[in-house]
């Protein structure tokens, strides 16, 4: 598993966004925040609740200058079919069939060679700013991910359940 404040491992993966296929890289998010959203597999029943959650909140991530990349070990064709099944997904679903990126980020479940349910937030500077791994049976909160992005972007000390506009603390203890 990676630790905080280290450079995010670079990657270059085929992906699908709004039905179109192209190659996506870590560098695509240069100067912006990036949410890497690892999930176990296409065509499952818990993952789409999260993917559809990100789809629903994608405008808010964009408004906060944050990109969202979802990554699984499924192939591109699977992603295309899966996205169609879900009614269209407008953020990139990246394909990591060799699981190299999952392994590089330390979120590969070696037992079944699928990604853990892990969320990694990469800062504008390309550093790991936040990471969390959720058990396979517990779906993640998209709202919480957005809140964390906003809290990180504030650069301040943010108390529990902090929301933008609420009081913050001095950032000197941030690290």
């Amino acid at each position: 598993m990676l630790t905080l404040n280290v450079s995010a491992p670079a990657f270059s993966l085929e992906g699908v966004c709004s039905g179109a296929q192209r190659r996506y890289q870590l560098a695509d998010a240069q100067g912006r925040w990036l949410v890497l959203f690892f999930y176990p597999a296409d065509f499952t029943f818990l993952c789409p609740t999260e993917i559809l959650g990100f789809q629903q909140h994608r405008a808010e991530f964009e408004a906060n200058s944050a990109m969202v990349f979802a990554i699984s070990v499924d192939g591109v064709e699977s992603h295309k079919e899966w996205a169609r099944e879900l009614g269209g997904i407008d953020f990139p679903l990246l394909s990591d069939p060799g699981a190299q990126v999952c392994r590089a980020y330390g979120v590969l479940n070696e037992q079944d060679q699928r990604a853990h349910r892990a969320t990694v937030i990469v800062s504008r500077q390309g550093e790991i700013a936040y990471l969390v791994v959720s058990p396979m049976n517990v779906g993640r909160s998209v709202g919480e991910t957005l809140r964390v992005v906003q809290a990180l972007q504030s650069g301040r000390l943010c108390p529990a359940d902090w929301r933008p506009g609420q009081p913050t603390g001095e950032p000197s203890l941030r690290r």
Partner: protein
Amino acid sequence: MATALAERKVKLERRIRVREFVFGVQDGLLSTVGLLSGISTATQSRRIVLLTGVAAAVTGGISMATGSFLSSQTEKEIFEKELMDQESLARHEPYLAEEALLESLTSDGLDRPSAYRVVKTLAKRQDLLLRTVQEKVLGLGSADLSHPVKAAAVMYLSFVLGCIVPLLPYALAAPGSALLISWLLSVAALLGVGVFKGSVTGKPLLVSGLEFAGIAMGAALVGWLVGKLFAGLGALAGVA
């Protein structure tokens, strides 16, 4: 087509009772022919042989029926508990039930997208999803196969029937020939049960019949040898 399949299911539920019948008759025949062979050889007394046979039929039948009742009841209770747990699972953790069914279908060779769509369709009806999970993932068939009382009754009657066959010759035939007739009748009866079982299960009749006959002969042979051994020991000890 649906009606024909439903009728097959009912027939299957009836055929499952053949399990108790086969078990009871086989056990009644084998244990009695072996026991009576031994007692007859050891005592040469028709009265003792008959008393032993009747006692074996009554007590053995009760024991077998009780065992069948308790085991069927236990099986039924385990199934019912599992079904209750699964109902709770489907209600409170539908994703888990859906994922389990999805994994089961994909491991059977269905491609993931197709399996997903099947499960998604089933998931529109919670009861349907639950039944499919029970049958496909847990192997708990919807056929009601556990009738403890029926199983016990079939077991008792089958066991007693099995006991009567080898016992009758000792009641009706001359003492010298009873042992041989008992053996022959038992072998014939087991051959018949084996053929019957083959007709129900679709196994070749001759193979099924010979299987039973072979087991019967083996058991009778062991009983006869034990009787011979006891007779020899009795003679050594001076017991009449």
